[in-house]
């Protein structure tokens, strides 16, 4: 079998201006009474994409999914699926299927019957249904449990039945609402890769709602970060992490250090940012920031070096004292309190087994980073 990575690397329809979006939200707004769950949102999802909607609870991500499934109608705006306007089409006539967070397995039906339910609605022949059910059971490795009832299964098995049931009809799009939310950590990690394999094998478009950023980063081709009913950024996991477009996204995904300041000097590529207390930071690829703008310089903890003496070659170096140390095994996180009072988080990979660490609590320390290690945020 071709490795997943080689298929994935070439897959980027969103950067192709010719590519037609498969699912399209156009200025979609959804209000429940006075509460606006989704606010004038536009979004494109491409065929065969593994798309993740990531956000805190109440950000509107589930509402978006439910509108796609047909359980809610948009207050205004429209949703297109493969060119077809979905308005007014009830859930039972939409070519999408959903895997529910609670799995929603029918308690009075066996595993087989659960999987066959959707096929029966289509009026498929008995023989075809049996064949498809057997195929699905094999796909999720539950052949031995075909005649069990849902309450006779473990959490992981129930999750796989729910998955098999939702893909049995070969929908154009599979919607997954927190698909791994009810599993424990170890099972969740295994299942993530199973889901990715399944998506490749069946060639489906997946839209997954999650609040777990690790899950979204691992599985998705692209992630939409949502907040208060709006999409903050849509990008690949690497872009979201390395090039967030706003303070919100930078802070939402992973850990980040933000240095607030203003642009003192601006050349074609680089910029010099002066912090409130006079600290100078030189940045390459400063983006849109113009001279005089109030900006934030965002840098991830693992891109900061920490040393006891001022590094000779460093362009950006700031002095402070070690405020706290968290030893996590695979890495150590240092919290350095700069002289202007800001606390900076720097993490160091413990690549060597025994580290003769010269730094300890209350030591003077220098943090340094390269000019291209972080990004300048204007929003």
């Amino acid at each position, binding site marked *: 079998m071709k490795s997943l990575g080689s298929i994935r690397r070439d897959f980027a329809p969103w950067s192709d201006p010719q590519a037609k979006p498969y699912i399209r939200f156009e200025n979609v707004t959804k209000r429940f009474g006075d509460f606006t769950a989704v606010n004038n949102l536009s979004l494109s999802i491409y065929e065969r994409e593994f798309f993740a909607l990531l956000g805190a609870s109440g950000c509107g991500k589930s509402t978006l999914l439910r509108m796609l499934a047909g359980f809610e109608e948009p207050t205004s705006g429209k949703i297109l699926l493969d060119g077809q306007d979905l308005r007014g089409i*009830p*859930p*039972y006539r939409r070519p*999408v*299927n959903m895997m529910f967070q609670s799995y929603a397995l*029918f308690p009075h039906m066996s595993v087989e019957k659960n999987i066959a339910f959707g096929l029966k609605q289509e009026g498929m022949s008995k023989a075809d249904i049996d064949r498809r059910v057997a195929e699905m059971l094999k796909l999720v490795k539950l052949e031995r449990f075909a005649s069990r009832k849902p*309450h*006779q299964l*473990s959490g992981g098995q129930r999750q796989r039945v729910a998955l098999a049931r939702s893909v049995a009809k070969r929908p154009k799009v599979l919607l997954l609402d927190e698909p791994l939310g009810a599993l424990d950590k170890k099972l969740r990690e295994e299942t993530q890769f199973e889901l990715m394999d399944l998506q490749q094998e069946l060639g489906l478009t997946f839209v997954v709602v999650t609040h777990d950023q690790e899950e979204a980063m691992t599985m998705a081709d692209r992630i939409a970060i949502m907040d208060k009913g709006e999409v903050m950024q849509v990008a690949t996991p690497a872009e979201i992490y390395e090039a967030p477009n706003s303070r919100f996204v930078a802070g939402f995904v992973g850990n980040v250090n933000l240095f607030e300041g203003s642009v003192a000097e601006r050349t074609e590529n680089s910029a010099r940012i002066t912090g409130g207390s006079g600290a100078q930071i030189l940045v390459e690829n400063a983006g849109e920031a113009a001279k005089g703008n109030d900006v934030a310089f965002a840098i991830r903890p693992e891109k900061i070096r920490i040393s006891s003496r001022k590094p000779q070659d460093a362009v950006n170096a700031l002095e402070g004292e070690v405020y706290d140390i968290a030893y996590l095994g695979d890495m150590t996180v240092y919290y350095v309190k700069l002289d202007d009072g800001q606390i900076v988080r720097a993490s160091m990979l413990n690549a060597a087994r025994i580290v003769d660490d010269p730094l300890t609590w209350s030591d003077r320390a220098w943090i340094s980073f390269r000019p291209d290690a972080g990004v300048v945020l204007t929003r």
Partner: protein
Amino acid sequence: MNATWSRFNIVSIVLGFAFLYLPIVLLVVFSFNASRLVTVWGGFSTQWYAALFRNQGLMDAAWVTIRVALVSASAATVLGTMAALVLTRYTRFRGRVLFTGMVFAPLVMPEVITGLSLLLLFVAVGLDRGFLTVTLAHITFSMCFVAVVVQSRLISFDRSLEEAAMDLGAPPVKTFFQITLPVIAPAIISGWMLAFTLSLDDLVIASFASGPGATTLPMKIYSQVRLGVTPEINAACTILIGIVSLGVIAASIVNKRREVQRRRDEQAAMRLD
């Protein structure tokens, strides 16, 4: 715990149970009395049971009662389930609170008032009192009991089951009959059984709503007792007690078994994971 089995506790329990069950025990014992005098023991005999089955009046009344109970329990179950569905599903319609109150008011309404009002209604519309009116009256008052039982089940019903069925292509009506109804069936069945027993032992409302030719068993027993208790009545009551207790015991055994089996299955599933 043993320390708490003091003399006082034992006395309390004996008194409590005696208070509850002594009258019933007396009734059962005297149904086997050979003597015609209800309160004087004249030796063991089953003659009153034989007499009971020869008593055409009592047997007719029993048959009427069973028919009324079957019909009214079934109709009340349909109506009560519909009311419960509306009350739990459509939570935003105008006048919902009033409607809820009106559905549940008969639960606390004195039976005399319910019976009298029904009687007035039947007279007003010119309905001849008989089998039909008793049945209608029983539907009216047992419907709200069914609604309460079914509603409490529907509150904990996971709506995503219905959404999943629709998502898989089942239209709403099909979803209701294939998913919702089977899942809430146990509550509907117990609602039916409640309605059935309520109808079976109702005296007050039946007395108002019934007419000649539709005398129910409780009415018959009551009218005979006014002429003096006969051992026959004791026998009839003993049989009723027997049927009801058998039903209750059987239902609880079945429930218990299912619960144990379910727990065992769940534990087995956890080990497999």
